[in-house]
């Protein structure tokens, strides 16, 4: 015969087990609901594809050290930053092609981000404002292009080839976003002294220089 206190203890333990099982079942059910809720937040319809538009690319040629305007039809987003990235991606895709006139590996993925900011005043008045550069009132923009380190590491070295890459990027941006008057380059988010040993990446490039280039 089981003593009375042991029978009571057994009942309490049994009851506790049942309560714990109930709590566990409830928690599992809540976790499952959370998981289902997370899946519901995923996009269920395909992103909208912008209609193809004509973009002007200034394509470099190593043969004669020239930039030639080339029209390309490609989907361009409405957002100017995304638009700039799409255009530059197409330009770098051309350079990554096997029959490129200016071969540079990397392709579209080499442009991590393009930021468009109000251009600081580059005129003589810029230095009069003290530490911060004056904003211009012409609506000109400064494009900051963040390139991936892999692109820079794989870029051929040389004065001509590096200069052509920089000028074709600046010229292409200006051709499609005319308000972009200045361009600066970053590599993996940081300022680098040069592209591959020659083209200076510490300076601000004026897109007007690419337009009037001989």
């Amino acid at each position: 015969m089981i003593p009375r206190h042991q029978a009571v203890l057994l009942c309490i333990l049994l009851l506790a087990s049942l309560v714990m099982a109930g709590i566990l079942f409830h928690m599992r059910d809540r976790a499952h609901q959370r998981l289902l809720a997370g899946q519901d937040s995923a996009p269920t319809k395909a992103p909208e594809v912008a209609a193809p538009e004509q973009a002007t690319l200034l394509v470099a040629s190593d043969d004669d050290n020239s930039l030639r305007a080339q029209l390309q039809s490609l989907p361009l987003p409405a957002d100017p930053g995304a638009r700039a990235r799409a255009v530059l991606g197409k330009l770098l895709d051309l350079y990554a092609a096997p029959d490129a006139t200016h071969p540079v590996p990397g392709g579209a993925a080499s442009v991590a981000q393009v930021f468009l900011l109000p251009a600081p005043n580059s005129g003589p008045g810029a230095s009069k404002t003290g530490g911060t550069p004056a904003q211009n009132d012409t609506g000109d923009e400064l494009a900051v292009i963040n390139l991936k380190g892999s692109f820079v590491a794989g870029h051929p070295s040389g004065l001509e080839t590096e200069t052509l890459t920089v000028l074709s990027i600046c010229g292409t941006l200006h051709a499609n976003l005319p308000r972009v008057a200045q361009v600066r380059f970053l590599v993996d988010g940081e300022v680098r002294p040069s592209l591959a040993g020659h083209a200076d990446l510490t300076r601000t490039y004026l897109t007007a220089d690419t337009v009037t280039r001989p």
Partner: protein
Amino acid sequence: MHWSRREFRAVCLAVIAAGLCVTACGVRAQAPPAPPARFVVVIDAAHGGDDTGGHLSDGQYEKAVTLALSVRLRSLLAARGIQVVTTREADQSVSMDQRAMIANRASAQACISLHVAETGSGVHLFVSNLAPAAATRFMPWKTAQAAWVTRSLALTGALNSALTHAGTSVTLGRAPLPGIDSMSCPAVAIELAPERTADRKLTAEPDNADYQAQVAGVLAAALLEWRTEGRQP
């Protein structure tokens, strides 16, 4: 009037001496003006030390090839009686500012920065893209070349003419050139690219000794010509 034999001989000698004097004066008058006291060329072999420059296809670094080309050009110029100052004579690091300081101290009539590339063909000549500016007593360090851009373009024209005449393909360009932008002398960046035929077939790499000797010979001749042009008013 009868002259004695002695008198006649003296008159003849005087006439001959006078003729020789006039001839000598004439020759002297026709000769080109005397060369300036100093004609200095600065040769800047790009890169060096930790800065290896480009990596050529046969495993060589750009810094080694520019130094070899610099030594070759220096020898050719020295053989022609031109004073040469080099920014480096060995595999050592020289900053852009140091290179400009060496060039500016030399008060050179031509500053040549040598580069080597694997892309393109022939010789690429680059001049600073600074807008021409009037020389002042004190020029900003970063844009000192602005006062010399016109002369730099003239020097590029002389080099281009000589190279084209020698059958070398030449491409011309203007770009921001750190180092050269701080030089107060006619300055050109010369990039030696592979030699190719018209159908883009490779005939010589930039580190090919014969190819280097050929280009260096043309550059030396062009600089000699530049010295002559520099003497003209």
